[in-house]
């Protein structure tokens, strides 16, 4: 019985559409669970700046507030370990997702970011057997996800020797920053056949490449609605083909149900993996249909989904 359990979401950043979709999914699923009497509370907390120190303080406050479980999307995989340990010591269940924490006492719902990077190159190899030059758009320097996806891309390139990364810029996962960075490096680049990305930056890259008067190469997208819309238009115009992949913001709701299941007495292993959300040429139209304008492709999880994920892992 979990009716008296209180669950809190500790979120470190709210400044983009992905995080907003995540908060919305949480709100939807959480408030439903509360009104259904499954849990007593599902409150969301957001720090004003994307900072591990601030999030650590936030977690400490949650301990004081007496939450039974804390679901975390962490600013740093390790810098919160001190606070997470304190929470565990206070008998609190800690479940991390997307930005996971390495502290052993916490559960992790991980996305294989490295695999995400590798699959991009794999896809390009299937599309462009002759290989060619690639442009890489990275995220924010010094952040765990950026490093993981980058490592995956490197691995992909080493597996497919016909590809070569000729340029790399940091787009901070933002369309305007990527657009600027790509516009700055393009003039010095030879012809490129593909752009590997980290999500939230494909549209900006496309804009910059178009502005430079070059043919638009295969840009791997990151599930943003504007990217997919651009892709659909380009497909209708001249049969443009690509792949889009990213983690679904709704994975937060999976973490919510996992926490609930742990209270319910389910045997949950510490490490769970969720697949990332992939949009292909075939699923483009239906995904686009289901995504609100300006938002991100999303799936929300139910209690049943969570049970399935847990039993798969066991």
């Amino acid at each position: 019985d979990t009716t008296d359990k209180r669950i809190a979401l500790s979120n470190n950043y709210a400044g983009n559409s992905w995080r907003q979709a995540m908060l919305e999914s949480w709100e939807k699923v959480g408030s439903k669970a509360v009104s259904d009497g499954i849990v007593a509370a599902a409150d969301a907390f957001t720090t004003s700046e994307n900072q591990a120190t601030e999030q650590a303080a936030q977690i400490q406050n949650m301990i004081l507030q007496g939450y039974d479980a804390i679901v975390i999307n962490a600013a740093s995989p390790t810098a919160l370990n001190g606070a997470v340990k304190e929470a565990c010591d206070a008998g609190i269940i800690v479940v991390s997702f997307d930005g996971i924490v390495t502290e052993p006492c916490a559960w992790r719902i991980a996305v294989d970011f490295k695999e995400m990077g590798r699959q991009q190159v794999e896809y390009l190899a299937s599309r462009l057997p002759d290989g060619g030059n690639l442009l890489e758009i990275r995220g924010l320097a010094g952040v765990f996800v950026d490093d993981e996806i980058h490592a995956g891309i490197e691995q992909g390139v080493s597996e497919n020797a016909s590809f070569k990364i000729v340029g790399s810029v940091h787009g901070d996962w933002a369309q305007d920053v990527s657009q600027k960075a790509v516009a700055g490096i393009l003039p010095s680049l030879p012809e490129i056949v593909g752009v590997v990305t980290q999500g939230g930056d494909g549209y900006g890259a496309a804009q910059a490449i178009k502005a430079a008067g070059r043919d638009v190469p295969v840009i791997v997208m990151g599930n943003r609605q504007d990217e997919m819309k651009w892709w659909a238009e380009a497909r209708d115009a001249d049969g443009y083909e690509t792949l889009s992949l990213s983690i679904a913001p709704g994975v937060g709701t999976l973490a919510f149900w996992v926490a609930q299941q742990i209270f319910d007495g389910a045997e949950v292993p510490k490490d769970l993996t969720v697949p990332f959300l992939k949009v292909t040429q075939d699923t483009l139209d239906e995904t686009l249909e289901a995504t609100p304008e300006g938002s991100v492709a999303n799936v929300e999880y139910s209690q049943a989904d969570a049970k399935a994920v847990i039993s798969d892992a066991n």
Partner: protein
Amino acid sequence: MNGKYRILLPVLSLAFLLAAVFYLQPRAMSYFGLNLLFNLAVPIALATIAQMMIMMVNDIDLSIGTFVSFVACVTATFLHDTPVLGVAILLAAILAYAGLGALIHIRQLPAIVVTLGMSFVWGGLAVLLLPSPGGTAPVWIRSLMTVKPPLVPMAVVACVLIAGISHFLIMRSSTGTLLRAVGGNAQAVARSGWSVAKLKAGAYALAGFFGVLSGVCLVGLTTSADANIALRYTLLSIAGVILGGGEFTGGKISPVGAVIGALTLALAGSFLSFMRLSPDWQIGAQGAILILVLAVRLLFSRRNRKWKEAAQNG
């Protein structure tokens, strides 16, 4: 504002916020609770003292946040793996700070620009050290930060120590008096035969020293580091000095006030957590509470208004 009011106001704001927090969350009123409320304020207090050293000589340091991040990265890597090398790097960083102070004075450079430039440099060095979050806190600092003294929690003891030592150093000692004199009227100090370049280098070195302490303490709390871990400290530290009754020019600073200002800022965050606002407004509320706390100063300055100030403000 004259000397008496300068310290009274921060004390009152802190007391008021503390009362509000205790009211909202009585559990905070314990050894354990106080420690959770304040332990992450210790590195902020140290960074605020560092910023205060710079503001004392009429400059401002926009790089303190990245500097503390850099120190944190060094602490979690070199200081842990090869302590001797780690200590040498940190000493060199303090020397670099001293050098900057001298350079700024001798070449008459605007400190805000030089430190802005340095913020890129420290940030770059941090990214080179730890491209991805990680590292491990040296055991001694971890145990120092988690020590449980009798009666009063470590966080409170540390803050009192920081305030006391820096007060003695800056407000009571003869060297501190000279350093403040540089902020009050550098020309007069030079006329009396002192080398202002040396004094400024000294103030900057002190800033570097407290910045190093801040980074080391931070890693002690978080157990690991990343390149972006303390970026927020730049603005927090400036706000802390001002909240503590310091001013941007004229060498008017108060170390005790600065520590209290840092604590107030940390407490404001907790206060908001305990209010359980909607996530949409959580960020805005941080701004609102800063405005509120600072607006209280008005009551005091009104009462203590002289025409000098009237002329300044019209």
